């Protein structure tokens, strides 16, 4: 009995010494409805609203159409991914990661396995590194394209949305060719990828990268200098560099305020320092600058894609370590040792040292951090994520205050949030 309690206590620090769970205090937060006859009214923007990009609920206090206060209410998409991860082996968790940011699943897949590989001290092959760079940059564009589409809809222009989605469709097809799935890719494994890149896939990515700038130019023509768009977004939701840092903003939202912080440049991983690309920054920190920065980031990602495709080396994709990588399917089917090897790896999993490790990459929405804690076994004791959207969203009450209802929608769109990673 006591060993069971010990084991449970080790894996669940929330449990009291006698094995009973200690409830964490959950204090319900309610915004009081203003009294009848007062000058303000409460409007629930979401969780079912066309402009909340998921199930975000913003409790907005309106004075006429002016936003007095905004309170984001979260949890409508809570799936307990981090807790679920504690009951899965390292490789099984990969499938949870892409559900968190379904707009850039490959970045999440890669970030997670990179953290675990750092924990385990695994060096992946050159081909795998370049392949993951391609995956991540492709999905950065993938995510920014969705942002561009929803941004256009929120500003009232429907046509750029469909232009963006035509290009997204090409990435969907590339996802499908790579993994068989269009959104929930689960493409990475500890020490490598699910499979090698399929025949002709690199050519497909090249074609996508070649064609994307033309679409961006078209959207540029429709929006960038359009007086209505400019008038709707310039000076709206501005945040200074200092405040942006204090709020913990990352990604394009931070860079729009003029802080050139990009994990790819500042703490390079996967030889990002050897790629030639620039980090666009804005100088006003308003919605329009966030728009410009993301538009430019897509062009820079295209540039990186070309370079990565040029240097994609031949060779093995997975590390040649039998404790980590599965034997080939042909071997499994033909000789007993490989079969046993496969069986043991699948049933037992890959052990990780009893250490903890933090690793962050530049996700599409900001700095995406993964914190993993091993206990010597094949499952994590703890797995925590720093979701960039969650932190970015925290700035919305500050950004939206005093603006109009329509501006609130634009500010929300400019932050580029995804509810999967906010609620997790």
């Amino acid at each position, binding site marked *: 009995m006591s060993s069971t309690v010990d084991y449970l206590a080790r894996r669940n620090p929330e449990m009291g010494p006698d094995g009973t769970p200690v409830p964490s205090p959950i204090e319900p937060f309610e915004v009081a409805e203003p009294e009848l006859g007062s000058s303000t009214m409460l409007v629930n923007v979401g969780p079912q609203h066309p402009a909340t990009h998921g199930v975000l609920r913003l409790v907005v206090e309106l004075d006429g159409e002016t936003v007095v206060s905004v309170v984001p209410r979260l949890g409508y998409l809570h799936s307990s991914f981090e807790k679920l991860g504690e009951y899965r082996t390292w490789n099984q968790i990969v499938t949870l990661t892409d559900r968190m940011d379904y707009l850039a699943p490959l970045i999440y897949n890669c970030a997670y396995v990179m953290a675990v590989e750092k924990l385990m001290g695994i060096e992946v092959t050159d081909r795998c590194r370049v392949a993951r760079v391609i995956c991540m940059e492709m999905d950065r564009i993938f995510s920014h394209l969705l942002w561009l589409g929803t941004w256009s809809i929120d500003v009232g222009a429907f046509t750029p949305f469909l232009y963006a989605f*035509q290009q997204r469709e090409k990435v969907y097809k590339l996802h499908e060719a790579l993994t068989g799935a269009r959104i929930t890719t689960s493409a990475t494994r500890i020490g490598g990828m699910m499979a090698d890149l399929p025949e002709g896939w690199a050519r497909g990515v090249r074609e996508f990268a070649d064609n994307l700038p033309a679409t961006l130019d078209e959207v540029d023509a429709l929006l960038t200098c359009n007086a209505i768009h400019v008038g709707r977004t310039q000076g709206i939701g501005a945040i200074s560099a200092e405040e942006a840092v204090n709020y913990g903003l990352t990604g394009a939202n931070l860079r729009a305020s003029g802080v050139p912080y990009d994990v790819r440049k500042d703490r390079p991983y996967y030889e990002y320092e050897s790629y030639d690309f*620039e980090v666009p*920054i804005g100088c006003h920190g308003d919605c329009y600058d966030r728009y410009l920065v993301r538009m430019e980031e897509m062009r820079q990602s295209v540039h990186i894609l070309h370079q990565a495709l040029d240097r994609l080396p031949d060779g093995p994709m997975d590390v040649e370590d039998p404790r980590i990588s599965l034997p080939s399917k042909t071997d499994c089917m033909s000789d007993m040792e490989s079969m046993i090897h496969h069986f043991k790896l699948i049933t037992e999993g890959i052990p990780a040292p009893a250490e903890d490790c933090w690793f962050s990459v530049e996700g599409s929405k900001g700095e995406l951090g993964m914190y993993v804690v091993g206990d010597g076994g094949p499952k994590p004791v703890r797995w925590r994520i720093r979701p960039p959207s969650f932190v970015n969203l925290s700035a919305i009450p500050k950004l939206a205050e005093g603006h109009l209802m329509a501006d609130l929608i634009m500010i929300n769109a400019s932050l580029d949030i995804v509810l999967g990673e906010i609620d997790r």
Partner: protein
Amino acid sequence: MGEMQELSTFWFVTFGAVKVVAVFTVVMAVVAYMTLAERRVSAFIQDRLGPNRVGPFGLLQPIADGIKNIIKEETMPGTAAKFYFVLGPALAIMPAVVTFAVIPFAAPLPTPVGTVDMIVADVPIGILYILALSSLAVYGIVLSGWASNNKYAFLGGLRASAQMISYEVALGLSVIAVLLLAGNVTLTEMVWKQQQLGLWFVFPLSLAFIFFLISALAETNRLPFDMPEAESELITGYHTEYSAMKFSMFFIAEYAHVVTASALMATLFFGGWDIPFWPGDDMFRHEGAWIRGFDESGAPIPTSPSVLITLLTLAAFSVKTGFFLLLYIWIRWTLPRFRYDQVMHLGWKVLLPAALAYIMLIAGTMLVLDQLGVAYGMLYGLVLTAVSGVTTLAFLFFVDRDRVISGAHRKRTTRARAPRAVADPAGRTPPS
């Protein structure tokens, strides 16, 4: 030739009834196919296919939509004010379908029993009737927004009332310029005056046309002025709580407004049913006879209605109206939406004073021309065209330099500075 055969009361009533039914049917059919055209044209703009499954080229799609809307469940919010909730769509659609009555759509048609005017009701108040009735449409929207007992609908209704009242003013003022030049409020006479001038009013009154176009977009709640429904902000605004046929009523009302506004633009500024560069179709009732114009001595030149001319002018009218319908669609799928305060700003602080100043200018120019004894004709029109052209260019230049949309003038400076591409910031100590 030229002698008029007046219709007897019996035939007047008969033809009147036929015209009411025919015009109503045609307008409704145009509305139905406008929805299809909107979807097909937007699909073309957006590189899609659009609805093409129901019937050849999707031509039966509006019928399918109609059937769907009729057999759908009518929902009624539990807390809605039921009477007004039902009254709202009815009030919205009625003004939309009756305004077409005073728009002449072709040259008079000769029949064995007399000549029939190709207009449902040639009432003497003409354009005033349209302005009066189309302002009633806002009641339907405000009522339904209020009666829905929904905050989004309420905001949409409020926006609609403010916006439509504001642009009613700009619309009316832009029409005043036309009234000055036409000297009358009936649309039949406006067509005739444009034929006599030898120029469509869009040339001598170019700025009034721009004001009218903008105001008509705002009046019909179409993008970029679809504040009341703004789906990304207010779900769909005032008709958030409506479903099935009641929702459809708003939809039909919007498109009927669009059709009327297009026909009105064609009539007020593009000669109505006039065929350009051909005086042969000019026709007006003058002292009990049909005339084509006046000769040098001022004597009327008689003409006579013919079926061919009626058909040709009907075609001309359809082409002009169709062009504006397409323009409406084109604008909707190209431009983003204004913000509410910008719409008010544009209406009150730009269009209203500019339209007033423009009326003064036109009136002044006309006074000078009349004093100089310039006859109403080509020269008269050309002088006004020159004055209006300069004013229009000045107005567009002025507007383009950020007086309407704050920020428009900043776009160049901002473009130069942001995004500033930054080289490797490796010199900094990276954050831990």
